[in-house]
């Protein structure tokens, strides 16, 4: 087989793979949409049939009753500020770890953090937060989000920094640039693909956090998106149509963020690493 034919074949294989996975992803998502736009009565009779009447007002009801606007605003605030600190603190901490083996013990100290079940930290953490008067404050939850997620961020960054040739920074240092300026102007821009990964991965966990917010931000005005959605879950009966409508509304902002990120990151990512 010629190289050209192989390329064609691999393109076909790609298209097929994407199509199959898309189907696998979409079927369960379709059920979610059905549960939101069908009435509970219709859903009870047959969850998979085409809706006889679209209950669009469910979305409006979910939006209003759960005060989703407030939830989205609070979640966006917590997620974006935590992300900012995660990227700044994580990237800079990963740099010495990736470059010099003497920091290996520190690396393993951080790494051990990925492996701890959160419940293990819960009670002493609550006492600590109370001591610092951080309960029912946004900054308190941001501290915890950053602390809990940092190990994974450092793990990701240090892995990728190792793959970057250190000649670049040596040259810059010889040119008289300070180490901090060198890092933020030369190394950090090369980490764009990892930064995008870090942002995407942490959006998944922070946007979906339920338990930390429940424990440390119980006040109604401060409720995050996930807590707002849970207001439709009862001890025995849950309002499934409202829950699903709220879930759909809740992922839309993040889909927009992902689409925006895609554009930014795909442009000119390649090439940068070896330009110097």
């Amino acid at each position, binding site marked *: 087989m010629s190289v050209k034919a192989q390329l064609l074949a691999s393109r076909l294989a790609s298209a097929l793979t*994407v199509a199959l*996975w898309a189907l696998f992803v979409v079927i369960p998502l379709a059920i979610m949409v059905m549960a939101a736009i069908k009435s509970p009565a219709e859903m009870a009779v047959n969850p998979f049939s085409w809706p006889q009447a679209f209950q669009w007002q469910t979305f409006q009801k979910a939006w209003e009753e759960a005060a989703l606007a407030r939830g989205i605003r609070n979640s966006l605030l917590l997620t974006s500020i935590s992300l900012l600190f995660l990227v700044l603190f994580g990237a800079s901490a990963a740099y010495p770890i990736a470059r*010099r083996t003497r920091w290996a013990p520190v690396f393993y100290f951080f790494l051990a953090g990925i*492996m*701890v079940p959160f419940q293990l930290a819960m009670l002493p953490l609550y006492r600590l937060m109370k001591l610092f008067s951080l309960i029912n404050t946004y900054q308190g939850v941001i501290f915890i989000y950053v602390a809990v997620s940092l190990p994974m961020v450092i793990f990701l960054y240090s892995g990728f920094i190792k793959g970057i040739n250190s000649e670049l920074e040596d040259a810059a240092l010889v040119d008289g640039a300070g180490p901090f300026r060198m890092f933020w102007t030369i190394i950090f821009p090369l980490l764009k693909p990892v930064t995008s990964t870090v942002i995407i991965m942490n959006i998944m966990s922070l946007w979906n956090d339920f338990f930390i917010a429940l424990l440390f931000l119980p006040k109604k005005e401060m409720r995050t998106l996930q807590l707002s959605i849970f207001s439709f879950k009862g001890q025995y009966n849950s309002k499934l149509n409202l829950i699903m409508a709220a879930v759909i509304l809740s992922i839309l902002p993040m889909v927009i963020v992902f*689409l925006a990120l895609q554009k930014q990151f795909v442009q000119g990512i390649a090439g940068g690493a070896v330009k110097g």
Partner: protein
Amino acid sequence: MGLRNATWTNNTRLRTLITDALFLLPAFVVFAVFFAYPVISSFYFSLTKWDGINPELKFIGLANFQKLMGDRHFWTALRNTFRYAILVTVIQNVLGLILALAVTSKVYRGFRVLFLVPPLLSSIAIGSIWSYMYAPNGAVNSLLTLAGLEGLAQDWLGNPRLALYSLVVANIWKWTGMAMIIYLAGIQAIPKTIHEAASIDGVDVWQRFRHVTFPLIAPAFTINVVLSMIGSLKVFDIIYIMTQGGPGRATESITTYIFSRAFEANKFGYGTAIAVVMFAIILALSLIQLHFLTRREVRA
């Protein structure tokens, strides 16, 4: 000359040490105060008989750990957890890598975002969706019937021999998009020039993947394998919301067992002891994994 040179290097050494420390400081302080300290101080609970609320803690030494060795439910949970983690780690990485290679072209930008929707869903949505998928007359069985494969229809979550594997599929559905995006970051970091050079040389597609792409995404591979292994060893949400460890104990994992001991049976001390053991197991496995994976990276 020699003397001056020595002080010069000593100075730079000290300077790098200080700047390194400054690079590390913010992360270290936040992590140490808000996570490491609470975790380490809660290790003490594992040495007590305690219901989780009473101001009086009874110190009992290593008795909890001793009891753990003879607790067959703990071993069931451990076996389930390992089975789950191995399957998830292998399948998620193979599929994630295949998907990442498939969506490399910009044409599939929209699909990449679609594949990232399942990881965005909260556990309450996942639980309801997959409950409809797996119900006795749910989507999976209906699709099998449509395809003329009624014989394969199963009680996916009700059959204790199948339930764990059904959960693995739901886990893969949720998280493969994430594995994909990490591999994609690795692939995109490969300079185009290398691929171009390779295609000019007339290297075939498989050789290009085997000798050019794969070695260059080795760091992504390490990260993905370690993260999916740790993530699946710590699995809680998906199991708790879909089966609560049932039927019986067929899908009980270490974390659901910790939860039921500490908060349902009021045995907080014992629950913490299980968590400490789990932490030790994950730590050991990760170190072994990292050792082999990073060695492979260097060789490549």
